[in-house]
């Protein structure tokens, strides 16, 4: 079956990504050392590895790898859910303003010189508030195509938030704050510490579990609205649940890693290419593949050049040609 082997491909990509991520960089940790350390951690025995290796593994590389996998999985799952919900394969997780809201929250946090935790909290809140506002406005505008109104509201509000980000950058101190804002807006996982994983893990797991639980309903949700309702799907409440869950994971990942485009757009297509469009298989495959994809990108980001390359730039550079190739070969996957 194409489906089962497709999921295996995604798992293989993720595992290979993990091995490579540890094996390259300034302090390479080979697969053997990695297994030794993991085995020691599971059994609770001393690993016998040099302390420096242990520190890099558990304090620096490990958290960063886990963060990349979580953020990638989150963006891919949210993108998959939104593409189904909006019946449009060109939709990405920030279609309803999650990223622009988070961006405004983050730059305001930087403007007021908040701590890293404060900036992340503000970004998270900004993403949630932006989508809630879009949803409220979109639902209040009765008449016409609900989905279309919602998407257009997202675009309009996103543009307004973008203007807000521009204003804050304009007001910022150009020597300290502006570079920090620019860096944040381009996305990065450098300096991820073990403590950073907690605010990421909780929302990503919660939102992903909700979406996975609804995976069978999401098939019918991707049909035209009236068809879905005639099949017995209460589209209104389910749409709200899917938007809430997808926004939760998006806002959490954006607040942890900044704005990383393309993952939520490209990975769902790759996953559909592997296992087809049925959500029961597609969602888990997209999650695993998204984790592996962003991990590979992040490994490139920290090793390809003497300085860290912002993730948002790499995902665009890798994503664009990739997406064009995908359009050529896999168009029948969704058209």
């Amino acid at each position: 079956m194409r489906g089962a082997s497709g999921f295996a491909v995604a798992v293989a990509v993720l595992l290979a990504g993990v091995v490579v991520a540890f094996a390259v960089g300034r302090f390479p940790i080979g697969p053997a050392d990695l297994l030794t350390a993991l085995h020691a951690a599971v059994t609770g025995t001393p690993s016998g590895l040099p302390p420096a290796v242990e520190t890099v593994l558990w304090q620096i590389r490990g958290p960063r790898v886990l963060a990349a996998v979580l953020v990638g999985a989150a963006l891919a799952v949210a993108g998959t859910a939104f593409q189904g919900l909006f019946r449009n394969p060109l939709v990405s997780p920030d279609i309803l303003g999650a990223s622009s809201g988070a961006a405004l929250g983050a730059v305001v946090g930087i403007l007021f010189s908040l701590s890293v935790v404060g900036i992340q909290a503000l970004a998270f809140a900004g993403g949630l508030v932006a989508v809630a506002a879009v949803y409220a406005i979109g639902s209040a505008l009765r008449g016409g195509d609900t989905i279309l109104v919602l998407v257009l509201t997202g675009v309009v509000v996103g543009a307004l938030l973008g203007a807000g980000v521009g204003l804050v950058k304009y007001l910022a101190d150009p020597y300290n704050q502006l570079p920090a804002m620019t860096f944040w807006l381009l996305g990065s996982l450098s300096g991820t510490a073990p403590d950073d994983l907690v605010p990421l893990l909780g929302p990503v797991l919660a939102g992903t579990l909700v979406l996975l639980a609804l995976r069978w309903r999401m098939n019918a949700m991707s049909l035209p609205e009236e068809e879905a309702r005639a099949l017995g799907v209460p589209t209104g409440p389910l749409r709200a649940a899917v938007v809430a869950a997808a926004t939760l994971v998006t806002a959490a990942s954006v607040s942890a890693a900044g704005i990383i485009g393309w993952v939520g757009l490209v990975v769902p297509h790759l996953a559909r290419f592997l296992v087809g469009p049925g959500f029961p298989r597609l969602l888990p495959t997209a999650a695993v593949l998204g984790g592996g994809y962003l991990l590979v990108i992040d490994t490139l980001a920290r090793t390809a050049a003497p300085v860290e390359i912002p993730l948002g730039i790499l995902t665009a550079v890798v994503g664009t040609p990739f997406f064009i190739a995908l359009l050529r070969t896999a168009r029948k996957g969704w058209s």
Partner: protein
Amino acid sequence: MILECSDLVVGYGTRVVGRDLDVALAEGEVLALLGPNGGGKTTLLKTLLGLVPPLGGEVRLAGRPLGALGIRERATLVAYVPQVHAGTFAFTVAEMVLMGRTARSGPFEAPSARDHQVAAAMLERLGIAHLADRPYTLVSGGERQLALIARALAQEPRIVVLDEPTASLDFGNQGRVMREIRSLAAAGLGVIFSTHDPNHALRHADRAMLIRNGTSIASGPVRAVLSRQNLETLYRCEIIGIGTDDDVAFLPA
């Protein structure tokens, strides 16, 4: 009567599209809706499906008011076959038909073994089992329509509502789909379909309802309702009848 309503007012919000509509459908009976575009056929169908609330009057399904049914319960009583569409995602035909079982399980449940059985049986019944693993987006229009009918049957409903089931189909597939519609009624289902072809209604429906400007101008047994005169009133154009009175076909002049 499996479905009935009288003095139904249909429309969207404050906009009334049709009024004084009476529909009665028995099990095993096929009702055809005819009328010019924009006359209110589709709105009436959507109201009977519970997708649009009636602005006046009440629809009763199996003796119970439609508005009092939950969305899942409703889907087990009445199924909808929309006009053939391309679809956004390339679900397989089998996946598409399995979606007809949605109302039979809870929001977090996977389809049961029985759901898979019913879906497979409906593919078989419509003669498209060989297409099960093909993408719905890549089969022909006629095959898509059959898949949508199979999906509706997988709901195991008592009424099937089809919106212009032969629109955009080639000549051969039109016949195939109309024969399937007749066989649904033979199996005891109540069937309502809208069409632009009075000849389909004449040959495959038991009763017909002619809707113009939101009101019914004639309703009853097809032979009585589908006369040349009535059709000329309905479409405001000259109609030619071909053949004998017992076996007539109509053409627009």
